[in-house]
């Protein structure tokens, strides 16, 4: 992203555009020169994109394709690990996919994962945004706060889980501290009540990963151009109005990016959930990663696990495609806005 908040091809400053326009008019060759420059720029961008993408696609083909193909093989062959080798597994077509899609446990795991990912993503966003808003203007000691705020992200998730286990007993230090602060006996059973167990993991996820949202949003806030804010200030807009009508719309693509990345990451959360609950109490924390792990490595139903993974992969691809679509739309609307601004400046 450029300093002006523009996503995609490099932008030019309005002053520079004005100069160039004057030169072109004086020379009397506006359309031709501009077309040539634009063509050459498009070529350069395409070359740049290819130079980045080709090695990645190559790596994908070499490393991921065999895994995906093997996974596909397992998901259409019923392999009973105790009875035969994997190459002798019986071909069952799409039976396993049907089995997974009609498995109520899988359905509940999807629901739990979506609930967990949505709540923790929103939590990370709210706290991350608040911190970023407090931090985006330079002040004394900013670096120190920055380090403190990103520390949770540097903590290993399993360590987060085990530390939480020691602190979240009903009569443990967290409840005790909250009780003292609010002056009322506060005794939720974070680790044993099936109704709040998943929320416990979501809270830990928020603590663990708020810094991630914070970093992205801080970068986004810092990159917002000053001109529209200054213009709004001159026009007498309140701080709230500047935030709501200028900063927030300009930040929308970054917010979307932060939400999408966090959501995808949260859908795959496993270490904390497993270390704290192993799917329990009851089946309250049996999320998709936990259920896939149990199916594959506790029940050793490798084939069913593979089919589940494929279905989840498709689900994630759909989510990513929607996200990309939304990001593109945001980019287009921002591009349009900057185009208008440039035209205004030129006019």
């Amino acid at each position: 992203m450029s300093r002006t908040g523009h996503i995609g091809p490099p932008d030019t400053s309005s002053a520079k555009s004005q100069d160039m326009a004057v030169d072109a008019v004086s020379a009397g060759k506006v359309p031709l020169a501009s077309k040539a420059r634009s063509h050459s720029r498009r070529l350069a961008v395409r070359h740049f994109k290819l130079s980045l993408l080709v090695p990645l696609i190559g790596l994908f083909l070499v490393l991921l394709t065999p895994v995906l193909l093997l996974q596909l093989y397992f998901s259409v062959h019923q392999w009973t690990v105790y009875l035969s080798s994997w190459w002798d597994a019986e071909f069952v077509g799409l039976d396993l996919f049907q089995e997974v899609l009609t498995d109520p446990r899988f359905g509940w795991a999807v629901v739990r994962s979506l609930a967990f990912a949505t709540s923790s993503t929103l939590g990370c966003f709210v706290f991350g945004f608040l911190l970023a808003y407090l931090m985006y203007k330079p002040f004394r000691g900013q670096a120190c706060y920055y380090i403190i705020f990103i520390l949770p992200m540097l903590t290993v998730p399993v360590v987060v889980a085990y530390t939480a286990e020691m602190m979240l007993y009903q009569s443990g230090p967290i409840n005790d501290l909250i009780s003292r602060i609010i002056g009322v006996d506060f005794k939720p059973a974070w680790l044993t009540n099936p109704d709040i167990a998943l929320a416990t993991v979501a809270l830990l996820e928020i603590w663990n990963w708020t810094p991630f949202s914070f970093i992205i949003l801080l970068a986004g806030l810092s990159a917002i151009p000053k001109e529209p804010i200054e213009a709004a200030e001159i026009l007498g807009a309140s701080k709230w109005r500047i935030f709501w009508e200028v900063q927030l719309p300009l930040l929308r693509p970054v917010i979307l990016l932060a939400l999408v990345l966090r959501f995808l990451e949260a859908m795959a959360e496993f270490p904390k959930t497993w270390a704290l609950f192993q799917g329990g109490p009851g089946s309250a924390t049996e999320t998709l990663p936990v259920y896939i792990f149990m199916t594959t490595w506790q029940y050793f139903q490798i084939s069913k696990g593979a089919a589940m993974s494929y279905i989840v992969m498709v689900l994630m691809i759909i989510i990513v495609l929607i996200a990309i679509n939304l990001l593109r739309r945001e980019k287009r609307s921002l591009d349009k806005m900057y185009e208008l601004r440039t035209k205004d400046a030129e006019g």
Partner: protein
Amino acid sequence: MSRSSRRMFLQGSVGLTVANFVPGTAPFAQAATMEEQTIAAAKAVGKADVNGMIWSPYLVPMKPVIAEFTKETGIGIGAVQEISIFDAPQRAMAEALSRSPQFDFIHIDSNMIPSLASAGYLEPLDEYIKKAGFHLDTVADYGNFMKYEGQTFGIPTDGNVHIQYTRKDLIDDPDNKKRFADKFGVELKVPETWEDNLRLQEFLMDPSKDLYGSGNLRNRANGVTWWYMIFYSAGGFPFDDDMKPTIDTPPGQYAVDLYLQDKKVNHPEAANWGTPQMIPRIAQGHVVSCQYWDGTCKTIANPKQSKTVGQFYFSLVPGSKFTGKMVHRSISSPLAAILINKYSPRKAQAAYLALWLGSGKNSIPIVSDPVNAFNDAWAKEHMKAQPVLNAYTPEGIKAVETNFQVVAPPIYLTGYLEFQDALGKNLSEAYVGQLPAKDVLKKTDNEWNAIIGRIGRNKLKKDLASYKAVMPTKAVPT
């Protein structure tokens, strides 16, 4: 030395040498101990550093014993992957499926033997045992836990049998005794049946003093272990000869009901508590009675780790008169044992190291470590060894020995984890109110049928003989 005596000496030597090669006379001719024979057999296969998967609480007390073996044979420990005993089965199965030679040995719950042997990962140890003149001298029939389809696949390092813990100070208190007798018309004493146990727990618990009746586990991963004890003691066995589940039966429901009644007397957070939470509570005196792994004896008896030294009775786990006669069933799970990887290039070295660690004499320091208390006594020799008696107390060791006579495994079949988790999940759901108690066994029955269908009824019917062979035969210890 005179001429004649020199001749006599030479004649004697030749005679002994010849005798060494005569079949059947070797033990007399060599007159070597089992440990010496293990060293001799190990030397013959050459030096090597063997790699393994083992959890450090188990490995630490083994290290001096391994060092001794390394000094004698040149066989030692190389790279060790530390994985908890509860996570080891998944990793081991991944190794089995990829036929990986990475680990020479794995230290794991022996109830995984049928699954890992069926997946072709395990090296049978009988040939090594024969060559080393080794004998697994276990209490009662505990050695059967290492066998599957007639072959030996493991060497135990940990007995891990459940024993009964009852608060001595509370039940011997004259005031409590009188109140109990007044209320129930019977004497307050160590419980004999599950019902006695529950009544005693209800009577003596006092949550206002952070004293709860039970210290049993009810989490999803471990709670099921307690269900088995009750179920087996009620005369239940999970499958019939045709491998149809037989848990949705009166003994099964009896076990579910008793299992769930623990909620009345256990800590409100027990639904997700494991050993890290419960052992400190037992040792700090917050529990009236429980059935727990025998290693907790060592913790309770260690004044550096316990506030209840001398305050517990250690005894036989409660039984049931559900069948009309008294039956006691304890359980050993996870029973940690060393298994050898069939694909390992150093399997012989690893096997002899396992035998060395599995000698009753050599394992005395391992099972008597009062700090790293995970390895528990299991050999006959342990039961009279002073360091072991010091660690467990004589009363504790007597309880261990008694419970071994009626010890049973969880489901000793291929697919053990899958059967276990289906039942554990449903019991856990019922315990936290997600599933009605009456549906636990019906649902488990259905899930087990699906598992049987997937693994293969015939395959499991073959396994059933090994499972039955591990079950105890005595109803009550002698």
